[in-house]
């Protein structure tokens, strides 16, 4: 569980004209002094390696699908966005639909992890997590669900070790980095020396990554977020969802230096993934080796990973069953916005349901 309630109810009902107490409350919220519990779905640790942890969520409904789902998150921010609040949890939705849900959390790197590379994470930790998932009795086949950079990592894993992969779902996942929009300009090698940054800082602070993301739309992300808060607060609306999202946005983790340098140099600056010039543990990443059913999802308003970065994936894989879905949402709102439970979640589980084994009736128990 991330964050903790401070004993103060986030929503206070109609407050009328703003008094000093409301203003003070708003300022405390902006300062991060009012917190709400997040990532509360019960889960157990299955395996750990250094900072990486594989979790298995406890079921809340009879298991209807024998094919488990492994969620892979990015190295940026924390994965509890997938389980933000009980009433706004993609994980909770999967559990209610009867899936066996695992989560691979890369953790928070320390100074000792500044040399950690994508090779180690994708080439060692991810396969090991799959192996441990099997050992935990989850079956031989699995669905891999990658979000953002976690999707890119999932794609590399799927290309290098396709055995046992039943389905692949990638959400707002960058693939063709020549289409990165503003980030292409910012990461141009004339302006950004990723190796220098990694060498000097060791790990790149989460606040620096967050600043970069916010600066993509400075007015919307900085002024707009605060305006939304005041608007909600002054009209007496429940603040829980705003607080949870604000907490997550400001809860970034450092990016391991060596992995950051690789990510910027090999992906953004040299666009090696689509050219087949990435290797993981000495094995070339050839996306055409992916033959599992693929669902790629983009957000029309996503400015971090514009849809143009995702669409080329469908021409690179050899999956006969492949689908691209684009929904009118942004990078985070697509998964955890107010409309996600009606738009994204049911579509994902409908797609998965048609492609996952049913659990034998005698095995269905909570």
């Amino acid at each position, binding site marked *: 569980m991330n964050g903790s309630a401070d004993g103060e109810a986030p929503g206070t009902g109609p407050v009328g004209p703003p008094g000093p107490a409301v203003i003070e409350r708003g300022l405390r919220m902006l300062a991060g002094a009012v917190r709400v519990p997040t990532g509360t779905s019960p889960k157990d640790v299955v395996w750990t390696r250094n900072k990486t942890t594989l979790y298995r969520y406890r079921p809340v409904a009879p298991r209807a699908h024998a094919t488990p789902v492994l969620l892979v998150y990015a190295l940026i921010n924390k994965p509890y966005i997938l389980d933000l609040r009980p009433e706004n949890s993609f994980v909770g939705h999967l559990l209610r639909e009867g899936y066996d849900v695992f989560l691979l959390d890369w953790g928070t790197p320390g100074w000792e992890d500044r040399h950690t590379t994508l090779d180690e994470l994708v080439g060692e930790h991810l396969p090991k997590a799959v192996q441990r998932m099997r050992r935990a009795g989850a079956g031989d086949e699995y669905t891999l669900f990658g979000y953002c950079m976690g999707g890119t990592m999932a794609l590399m894993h799927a290309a290098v070790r396709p055995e046992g992969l039943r389905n692949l779902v990638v959400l707002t996942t960058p693939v063709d980095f020549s289409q990165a929009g503003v980030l292409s300009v910012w990461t141009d090698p004339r*302006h950004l020396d990723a190796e220098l940054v990694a060498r000097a800082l060791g790990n790149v602070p989460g606040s620096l990554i967050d600043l970069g993301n916010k600066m993509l739309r400075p007015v919307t992300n900085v002024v707009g977020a605060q305006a939304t808060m005041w608007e909600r607060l002054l009209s007496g609306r429940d603040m829980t969802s705003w607080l949870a999202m604000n907490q997550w946005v400001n809860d970034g983790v450092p990016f391991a230096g060596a992995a950051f340098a690789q990510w910027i140099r090999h992906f953004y600056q040299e666009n090696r993934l689509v050219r087949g010039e990435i290797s993981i543990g000495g094995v070339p990443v050839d996306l055409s080796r992916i033959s599992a059913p693929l669902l790629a999802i983009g957000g029309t308003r996503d400015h971090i990973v514009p849809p143009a970065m995702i669409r080329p994936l469908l021409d690179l894989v050899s999956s006969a069953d492949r689908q691209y879905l684009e929904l009118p949402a942004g990078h985070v709102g697509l998964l955890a916005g107010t409309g996600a439970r009606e738009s994204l979640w049911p579509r994902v589980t409908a797609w998965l349901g048609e492609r996952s084994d049913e659990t034998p009736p005698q095995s269905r128990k909570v």
Partner: protein
Amino acid sequence: MSAGPPPPEDPLRGMREAYEQVFQGWSKAMERVVAGDEFAAASGELLKRYVEMHESLRTASIGAAESLHLPTADDLARLAELVINVERKIDEVSDEAHAIAARLAAIETTLATLARRLERPTGPAKPPPAKRDAARRRGTSAAGG
């Protein structure tokens, strides 16, 4: 009947209205600015200066710590790396143990199958192949003696 005093004026209403009026324009203008090469060059230079300053400070603090015989972050990180390597080895040993357990389980299953076959009542035992071949050469039946 008196309607009571009118509700007090919302002092933030004006700010909200002003914000809504200028928000779109400011937002678009700022997005154009940050998308430009000039902004990228300026922010890249700023970042470069920052990391160079950071590196200088770190080098100086390492020198100071070493002169005072204090452990540096690098020293502690080396210790942590040793722990991480031990953890990795334990993980590998766990994998090996699991593989050995799986092999043992397979052997146990095979042995159990063989034991069941041995316990099963059968007819007279056949002679070993060598004895049978010798009997065939002599034109007699080994089994018949």
